């Protein structure tokens, strides 16, 4: 450990749930990364792969000996607008990537909170999706392929750069959302979508949660298809923001549908709508030292989940994608709350605290971990 630690330099990082700071390495080449991994494997060290370290709440108390960041490995590897795909190194920030593909008239999905801070590899490994999953689906659906580094220092490829491809097992689906517990993502390819020509945002200020969810329900009925719907608590009221975008004729028609079905919308368009959309997106809670929950539940049960959370923490301010079925909230975490949420069928990821009711990895997950990380060095969130 000491020889390796010396070479890692002065960078340190505080991991939630750990008393001491851990050494952090951010190699500037793949060769250096491979070397570090090989040394860590040989020395039996536990490695936590990270991007910019903005989502460390899920690795509370992880038994890491060192953190390995891909943030210095950044840049677009391939972007051919006519193919509608982009391939980039893991450390590329989501905002840089979005900027690169905007040149060809594309939008980057997922549109995650604070994209200047989040890296491509970190987002994919974390399984993080943006509010735009309502229309485009979760991040894992848009990952076309990857190159990854395994604990034996080998770089392997899965999938490719094609929008349609069933050649070989889709191991990238296994790696996406694996939280750095299986391997280290070096590079990924994503499918792109058309950048919207127009955007309009409707804001509803509601006196009760029920009123806000009633509006959300009205927005979910076909043929309306909002790109994102955000619900958040503002002191004594609830704010619901619906973002409509696409071709201008689509946005105009969807706006008319919203006005038919609801009352009290405050509208903005163009640059104002872009700004509001961005603000709403970036209100997602940061993962800090505070304990928090990331909850995923079928949309029809969002209301029950919110009632449970508010009963448990009356002053909490959940950040909700009600139609996509995801909730993030900073709150005290106890086993009763987690058990009640899970009894509703919700999947619960505890951040910044130990998970009091985690089922643990299944036998199959254990075998997969052993198969993909034979040296058992990666200690990310499984």
């Amino acid at each position, binding site marked *: 450990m000491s020889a390796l630690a010396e070479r890692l330099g002065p960078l340190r990082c505080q991991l939630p749930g750990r008393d001491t700071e851990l050494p952090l390495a951010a190699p500037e080449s793949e060769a250096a990364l491979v070397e570090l991994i090989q040394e860590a494997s040989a020395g039996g060290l536990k490695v936590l792969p990270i991007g910019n370290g903005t989502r460390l709440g899920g690795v509370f108390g992880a038994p890491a000996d060192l953190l390995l960041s891909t943030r210095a490995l950044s840049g677009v590897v391939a972007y051919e607008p006519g193919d509608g795909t982009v391939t980039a190194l893991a450390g590329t920030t989501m905002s840089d990537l979005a900027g690169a593909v905007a040149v060809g008239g594309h939008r980057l999905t997922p549109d995650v909170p604070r994209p200047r801070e989040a890296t491509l590899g970190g987002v994919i490994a974390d399984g993080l999706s943006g509010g735009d999953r309502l229309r485009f689906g979760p991040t894992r659906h848009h990952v076309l392929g990857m190159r990854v580094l395994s604990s034996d220092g080998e770089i*392997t490829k899965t999938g*490719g750069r094609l929008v349609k491809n069933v050649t070989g097992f889709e191991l990238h689906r*296994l790696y996406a*959302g*694996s939280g750095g517990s299986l391997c280290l993502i070096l590079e990924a390819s994503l499918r792109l979508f058309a950048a919207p020509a127009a955007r309009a945002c409707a804001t509803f200020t509601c006196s009760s949660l029920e009123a806000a969810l009633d509006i959300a329900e009205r927005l979910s009925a076909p043929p309306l298809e909002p790109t994102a719907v955000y619900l958040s608590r503002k002191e004594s009221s609830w704010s619901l923001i619906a973002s409509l975008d696409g071709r201008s004729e689509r946005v105009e028609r969807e706006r008319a549908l919203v006005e038919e079905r609801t009352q009290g919308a405050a509208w903005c368009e163009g640059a104002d709508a872009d700004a509001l959309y961005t603000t709403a997106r970036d209100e997602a809670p940061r993962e800090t030292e505070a304990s928090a929950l990331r909850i995923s539940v079928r949309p029809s049960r969002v209301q029950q989940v919110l009632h449970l959370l508010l009963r448990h923490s009356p002053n909490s301010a959940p950040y909700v994608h009600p139609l996509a079925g995801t909730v993030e909230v900073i709150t005290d975490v106890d086993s009763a709350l987690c058990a009640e949420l899970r009894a509703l*069928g919700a999947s619960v990821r505890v951040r910044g605290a130990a998970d009091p009711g985690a089922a643990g*990895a299944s036998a199959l997950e254990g075998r997969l971990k052993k198969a993909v990380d034979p040296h058992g060095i990666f200690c990310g969130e*499984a």
Partner: protein
Amino acid sequence: MNSLLLHELKRIVGPEGLTTDRTRRQAYECDGLALVRKVPDLVLAPLDTAQASECMRLLKKEGLPVIPRGAGTGLAGGATPHEGGVVFKTSRMRRVLEVNERDRFARVEAGVVNVDLTSACSHHGLHYAPDPSSQQACTIGGNVANNSGGPHCFRYGATTRSILGLTVITADGEVLELGGPEPDPEGLDLVGCFVGCEGMLGVATEVSCRLIPTPETTETLLALFPSLDGACEAVTELIAANLEPSAIEILDRLTIEAVEASVLAAGYPDEADAVLLIDIDGLFEEVHGTARDVEEIARSHGAFDVRTATDAKDRARLWAGRKGAFGAMGRIAPDLYVADVVVPRTRLKEVVLATTEICKARGLKLSNVFHAGDGNLHPNISYDRRDEEEVARVLDAGTEIMKKCVAVGGSLSGEHGIGLEKRDEMHRVFSEADLDAMLRVRAAWDPDERMNPGKAIPVRGCMEVKTKPLPVPAGGGRS
């Protein structure tokens, strides 16, 4: 086969779930890849998950290879039986267990036919998006195993994007509940890992499928081109212009002639060398706007006419012609080799041209009908399998087409899978280390490698992962 085992299996599945008679077993000697045949020792058809699990436990005790099978419509030999193996078919599991309108999902048994799922939920204003050409026969379980595609995958994605959860029976007979209706299940994405496994990780017995609202309107355009080149160029520009129809298909002249001479005659014009068949769906205003843009691009690449389906019946007729095209090819020759390759969408014209030359040089009759919007080509070669010399030329052409696709950044399969047909071509795309990574994952699910052995991943002499060399059925695999 061990008579005690047969007795036990019969007790579980009943006489109708067990096929021992050789004549009846012969019906399972191949799937859509008729070039490779092997009569299975036994065909098992459990009625539900419990029966499937119990059967699998018995098969494990005997160490028998298991070949999962849906409707047998696969085209890559994924369901070709294995020496001494048991075909494990899901076609008796046909119940739609739940349609959840509010959360837009359905839970079905694996043997439900693809088109029957949409029928079961259409009165809720919902449909299931993946629509392989064989959707009148293929099963949801088979679609899961192959990560099947179809024309409308251009917008809605292949099967994997529509699968929320699975009940899987492992080679040990263990019942796994993977994923579910929640958007992001806890733990690893085992559903994503399983879809497209070609029956090598287990057998899915129940599937939770995402449903999507039926669009307010759909407009179907038929653009007529004087050349296949012009149609390919138009598609490349449609993609570059970021237009988002729901399906973009190309049919060439030989395909048009075959369809028009068949019972599925769709009214495709005989004056065109190629047609683009395009669906655009969504809101009225958006659809009309996109259709105008599509027409403009088609005409700028030489389309001499762009027709719009007049009503739902007209639209259905145009699509029935497209989906029945493979069957219609039977008019050209007794057998059809349906190649399935995928290329970057900027390279369509180049690869289609190369494909034509490859077949021409070998004196083969080629027709093209393919998912142009996804870059997913289906060069179809008509032949007679009784002519061994012609079969050799067909297989050689198939290999050359694959090589060309890989050379331009494409891959071996867009939607049919690897199966037996392309197993030994995998090294063109993946390194030894890449293939070993797949084998390690496979071993985690099925340590004894009894699930669909010998498919999709080449067996190599030297690798880190222990694997049992398996005999290749006669005629299977190409060097």
